[in-house]
């Protein structure tokens, strides 16, 4: 941008900052799907799916629940 605006330091409004201990929870669905020894097995099978496949599909649910919890816990109270 040729004309970058410099926002005047206005009054610091009480704003929900991103800093929240809940955010650390988001590292769970980032790290767990990367631990291959956890799921690199054929048995037990579930509906014919080897563990490798059904457990990783289950991690999707893990991801959804963590992001949902963190969102609910960190959103602005209105």
């Amino acid at each position, binding site marked *: 941008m040729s004309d970058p605006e410099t926002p005047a330091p206005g009054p610091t409004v009480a704003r929900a900052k*991103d800093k929240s201990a809940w955010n650390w929870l988001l590292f769970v669905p980032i790290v767990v*799907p990367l631990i291959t020894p956890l799921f690199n097995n054929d048995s037990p099978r579930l509906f014919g799916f080897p563990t490798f*496949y059904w457990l990783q599909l289950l991690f999707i649910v893990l991801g959804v629940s963590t992001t949902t919890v963190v969102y609910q816990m960190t959103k602005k109270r209105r």
Partner: protein
Amino acid sequence: MGDHVTEIVIFSVLFLLVSGMGFVAARWRAPNDMAHLDEWGLGGRSFGGWITWFLVGGDLYTAYTFVAVPALLFGAGAAGFFAVPYTIIIYPLVFLVLVRLWSVSHRHGFVTPADFVRSRFQSPTLALLIAITGIVATMPYIALQLVGIEAVLKTMGVTGDSAIARHLPIIIAFAILAAYTYQSGLRAPALIAFVKDTLIYIVILVAIIYLPYKLGGWGSIFDAADAKFDASPNPNDGILLTAANQWQYITLALGSALALFLYPHSLTGVLASKNRDVIKRNMSALPAYSLLLGLIALLGFMAIAAGVKPLPGAKEGSVDSNTVVPLLFDQQFPSWFTGIAFAAIGIGALVPAAIMSIAAANLFTRNIYKEYLKRDASPAQEANVSKITSLVVKVGAVACIVFLDPQFSIDLQLIGGVIILQTLPAVALGIYTRWFHRGGLIAGWVAGMGLGTWMLYQVPNAATGRAHFGGSAFSLDKFGFDTKTTVYVGLVAVAVNLAVAALATLALRAGKVPDGGDDTVQDDYFADEGDPRVSVPAQPTSTDPDLDPAPSPKV
């Protein structure tokens, strides 16, 4: 092509239908003044939960993904399933990082990641590098969408003898796409994404219920795949990971996730949403697509169980493994349903291709045209330049497919993922810290690009008999380690990039080399919709409440 008439007719009808939607989209949620880059390129920055879900979903899960991921499982087994962890870890990452980028972009009117870098580090040079990296990485990605359509056309038997006749359907499809993107901007893919995803969900739901039933159940599908890999001479395939490719699996999943949200087109979808809550809620809802992708990936094993033989490739003796999913559908489904499935893949290519060309055009306009060619460009001129650039980008993508070996686009896409990762220190870390010296970031970028390209050059591919650019799995023994372990090139390159950027920062600080200032303040990273200091001038004047019920349902 006589026995494919039903498929071709259904494919064409659906294709024309969405093309019509693309043109009408210009009037959907229309602003008073379309001649502004925020309107054409970001849909007025006004999209709510549902539109964002379809738009970002349609953007990240491309036709090529739907064709190539199952092809990977078909060929190599478990290693191809990396797409699932990859699309799981991307959402928490976006939740943490891109929400802040949305805020600062909203406050300052940024349209591209390079805009942000320009202000954050006050360095037009660094911004130019980021913009060029983005454009170079996106171009082959657009070309790859054509590979997805081509796999479908090939299966339907729509091929000619000469190069022009063979590519004519694709040229026509892309000409239509170019025309409505030119007219409607980001609104076109946003509207079409509804149709695309509905079709894909229907096709996949039917496929995962009907095909296992026909093929003897999931257990026997996995057993058929296991038997195939046991019989193959390749030691690294199989329905589980081997000792040698586990690290490749981990680093590829992580590296791809980091790369994906650095791609300019992902950012376009995120910036088009109207507030922080829309993005955060979407990070919980978008994994529905990951489930879809995981199931689509397994189509590769179904193709093994069904005994699908891929069609021959462009070169003598090679096979085009991208045709396995279209062939599976063609072989197992009644032809009317195959037509719908093919249309889903074809339309699936249009949405991301449109968003990517818009993202690349925005980069050119904001960070090259406005920075170096015409500093006082008005918003209307910016929108106009972007529209024309989006046409040029698409012509380039078609030329890639028509005149070059499609394999070349696949190689470029491979390189694209590695090079876009090199913008991580400036863009993703830049959102959190201004610690890096702008010169240090440039040095890191150069190091990461150099190393990444060299490593890719060293990777052979046994299956195609190529000595270079054979994949992204780099064997660590090339570094002198005594191991068979392979890792993803991009992650190694970005680690070196970071190390160099950090060391150079220390050196430049020690040498008292002037570092630019910072046009952003801490508070900018938390701004939300309705912030009094937000500099976005164009607000939509009419919204369609039926299509965007806000707030969208909680997930």
